[in-house]
């Protein structure tokens, strides 16, 4: 094992461990605000995972959106639903007894399928950065999904605004 490889391994294991730990915290912390903070941490770690995979565009995108925008939304939601400020605002349901076995079963199933599978692996070309290649892909192969996603964002925007409007606004409009 070369020096860089060893470093790489250590980095990977550290990041992976932190990711999983913060994810666990998200689902186990009783206070939802704290869980939201753990979520930020998890996303942050995932972005480093991307970097470890040479996915630099994804690394940045993840940081910007997942670790930036989405937690903001989540915190907003927490703030607006005031009751969840309490200490037990993220408690467990009675389903908990079932959730653990099912989750464990799914985990075992995934590993049992993914690990032994004979993947056809190819070597990684020495790219300067992934951004150019992904950009080309977006314009060429994935042009239609690209456009559709932009429409989807528009719809999501409009929909969210309509749904969350205050009722007084609707009542005023009726007059």
């Amino acid at each position: 094992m070369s020096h860089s490889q060893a470093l790489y391994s250590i980095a990977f294991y550290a990041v992976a461990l932190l990711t999983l730990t913060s994810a666990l915290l998200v689902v186990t912390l009783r206070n939802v605000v704290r869980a939201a903070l753990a979520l930020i941490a998890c996303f942050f770690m995932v972005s480093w995972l991307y970097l470890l995979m040479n996915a630099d565009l994804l690394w940045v995108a993840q940081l910007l959106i997942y670790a930036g925008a989405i937690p903001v939304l989540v915190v907003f939601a927490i703030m607006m639903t005031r009751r969840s400020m309490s200490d037990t605002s993220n408690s467990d349901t009675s389903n908990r007894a079932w959730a653990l076995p099912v989750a464990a079963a799914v985990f075992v199933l995934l590993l049992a399928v993914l690990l032994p599978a004979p993947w056809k692996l190819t070597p990684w070309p020495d790219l300067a950065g992934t951004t150019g290649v992904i950009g080309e892909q977006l314009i060429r192969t994935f042009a239609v999904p690209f456009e559709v996603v932009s429409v989807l964002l528009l719809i999501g925007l409009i929909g969210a605004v309509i749904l969350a409007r205050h009722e007084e606004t609707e009542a005023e409009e009726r007059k």
Partner: protein
Amino acid sequence: MIGLPHFLVVSAGLFTIGIYGLLSKRNAISLLMSVELLFNASNVALAAFARFGYGSVEPLAGQAFALFVITIAAAEVAVAIAILLLIYRLRGTIWVDEIDLLRW
């Protein structure tokens, strides 16, 4: 040394944790957070396949796919929170085990 299986294990772990959170939490926002974990898990897997199987389909198709997933997840979170707020306004609660109008 670190190869595809390692990343897949991380992805599987994230997925599992997401499922557990989805099934065992009362707060609707926690459910939302768990769903985000699920998205991330699949994104990690996609990026890993793009990295270790470069050129099997389009080059870096997995990463492009993951990019789309991020976009869509963002839109989805926005709409989901809007719905959540509406429910909170109407029902006064965000505990999912109290929102059971379709019950027998």
